[in-house]
């Protein structure tokens, strides 16, 4: 254990932070509220909403990295920022491969919109007969 001070206000990262934490909190709440409002109001098509959600999430992530984690390219913080490279393979693997899977999946399983509507009366006629 290294002997550090117990008083949080004396930690350099806290002293340098200024009002960043409060701003990050308010901006985070505002972005979440915006996302919730967009989804609840069904503003736009599903695709547009998906893109809007992704964009809002990206802004929220950047806000957190900059204002909460204080990532920048100064000499003291550069290694924390460089550690974000881990994010690239994880992002590609988790989101990229999932999207690829769902893309193929939808072509195979989500065909009910047009054919289903046409097929429904025949189905009813069959059971009726």
């Amino acid at each position, binding site marked *: 254990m290294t002997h550090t001070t117990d008083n949080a206000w004396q930690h350099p990262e806290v002293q340098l932070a200024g009002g960043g934490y409060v701003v990050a909190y308010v901006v985070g709440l505002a972005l979440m509220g915006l996302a919730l409002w967009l989804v609840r109001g069904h503003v736009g098509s599903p695709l547009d909403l998906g893109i809007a959600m992704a964009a809002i999430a990206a802004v929220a992530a950047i806000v957190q990295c900059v204002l909460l984690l204080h990532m920048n390219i100064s000499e003291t913080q550069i290694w924390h920022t460089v550690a974000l490279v881990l994010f690239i393979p994880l992002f590609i693997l988790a989101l990229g491969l999932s999207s690829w899977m769902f893309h*193929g999946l939808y*072509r195979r399983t989500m065909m009910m919109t047009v054919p289903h509507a046409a097929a429904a009366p025949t189905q009813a006629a069959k059971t009726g007969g």
Partner: protein
Amino acid sequence: MLVHIDGPWSPLLGRLALSEIPYTNPILVGTFIFASLLAVVLVGLVSYLGLWRTLWRDWLTSVDHKKIGIMYILIGLVMLFRGFIDAVMMRTQQALAVGPHSPGYLNSLHGYLTPYHFGQIYTAHGTIMILFAATPLLVGIMNILVPLQIGARDMAYPYLNAVSLWLTAAGAALVMASLFVGNFAHAGWFGIVPVMELPYSPGVGVDYWMWAFQLSSIGTTLGGINLLATIVKMRAPGMTWGRLPIFTWASLSANLISLTTFPVLSVTLALLALDRYVGTHFYTAGLGGNLMLYNDLFWIWGHPEVYFVILPAFGMISEIIPTFSEKPLFGYLGMVLASLGIAGVSWGVWLHHFFTMAAAPAVNAFFSITTMAVGIPTGVKVFNWAFTMFRGRLRFELPMMWAVAALFFLLVGGLTGMMNAFATNDYMVHNSVFVVAHFHMMLLLIVYAIFGGVNYWFPKVFGFRLEQRFGKWFFWLFTAGTATVFIPMFALGFMGMTRRLDYVPFPQWGPFLDAEVVGIAIYVLSAVFLVAQLYVSFRDRAANRAGLDAWETSRSLEWMTHSPVPFYNFAVTPQVHARDERAWRVEHGVDGLRPERYEDIHMPRNTAVPLWLGALSFGLAFGLVWRIWWLVEVCSAAILALIVIRSFDHDTDYTIPAKDVERMERAIRDVPSGRRVSGDLPDGVPALREGL
């Protein structure tokens, strides 16, 4: 906003009512009586021996990484026993319920368990064995060993470490509570979608499963952060990355996985909670939801979790084999890269858990290839172990027996894993007991490594070696039980038997299921020998006293301090000169040196806050399960208040003056079986000198 629940609900008790207590089920009543008697005996014993003060001061409020590790292991052992009883019930039910003429008992048409109960048992078995047995056992071992191997005084965040422990304990307690209050999930340990959604599981079982899972997930994420920070920041001077002991490398890789994937699990379960509590549609069919989203998110965590539990097991094998081959580990760099490689590949294989669920052929092909690629770093490890043993002076003491047997299970589990990795083949064996037998081989590899590790490091933690004669009986009976259960299970898998059958329709499968019951009986017998081994070891602990280096040929840093390890770990922070520091010092004849002077030691102070946080989390989760909103509000408010109050507590550490260190060191050295030395220390913790 809250989703409507059918059935009675009251503001005071939520959905809880007397009818939810299963007092008409003789099995559960018997279990309850057994558990109550055990509790009475334990409470009586602690009172009789006057241990309440010790229990509170030295264990429940401790932030000592070794004691937290031991408590993790105790939770793991209790839950291992519970999960094993579930296994016994599944084996006996399947053997009894064969064919239409098989008799039924206890209101069951066939066998003695209704499908409703059988579903809960296999769900509980999986959940418990993965999350509340294997994970706590391994996290406990990492907790004890990592700071010792890198020459640290404690974890980077001792307080957070205790919080992780008590969150895991709260999760385990919630699973246990579901036995006697309400019921458990019947939707499989991984949540069969959409069965775990509210319309199909309107009871509290899935809620129990979900919140217990969630608590353990948060605890493990925090523990992962802690271990990573410890390894990166707390190494002794001279301990460069190239000198890091191999088990610590394995822990580093494992916790990279836990840090990056357990949050996914938390989110997955949180979305399920939203579905079940406020009526969102993340995982429903239609209304914008998607069933496959759950499978995808769950296994993004679920497969890396498998490597999270297997990497520390590999690490333990890598420590045991060189010691008992009397040679340094062959291919250190290859071993390190293989561990990190397994951690890396683990992020890209999850889809093989649902090859059969309509993914495009190219997607399946990609995941087949990544899955097979896991074999490359694993193969590197196996060859390194083999070359370590090659021309070594092999000693087959108990830890080595467990470690070498683990390699056999790696072979069987790995080869059957390669068979499953082919998507085409997976279409044949998906959901069959072949898959069950395969992953049990891998989990048994972990169990064997854990037993090897426990036998290996027990003298370091408790100061005496485990007895070998009963230990070998336990080893051979456990191995015989494994063979007798799982060889017939592989055969049944080839014959097409599917998983989770509460009734077996084909009488020709009967003899194989009977053989599995014989196997499980051998397992029960082996457990008797385990108890005998522990008892005899404890009784003869004076004769089995271990020195610094219990096995004479150990190599890494943890063998340079006393056995049992004093609460401050090392009297003087060691200077590291070589990869195998202990072996290096023996070779250069400097292993017996005593420090010229001692320095003050800075230690974290005990705190009861983590224990309260665990208890309040249990209350919060219990309130959520039964929808007792006042309990949820009270517990949430109390948790927040406690965290805020604790942040104003500046008295979180203390210093042991150098002269006290010197006095304790002299007492330990000069009176090997001596009295407790730390009784008069300010807030001192007895150094486990008396064994227990």
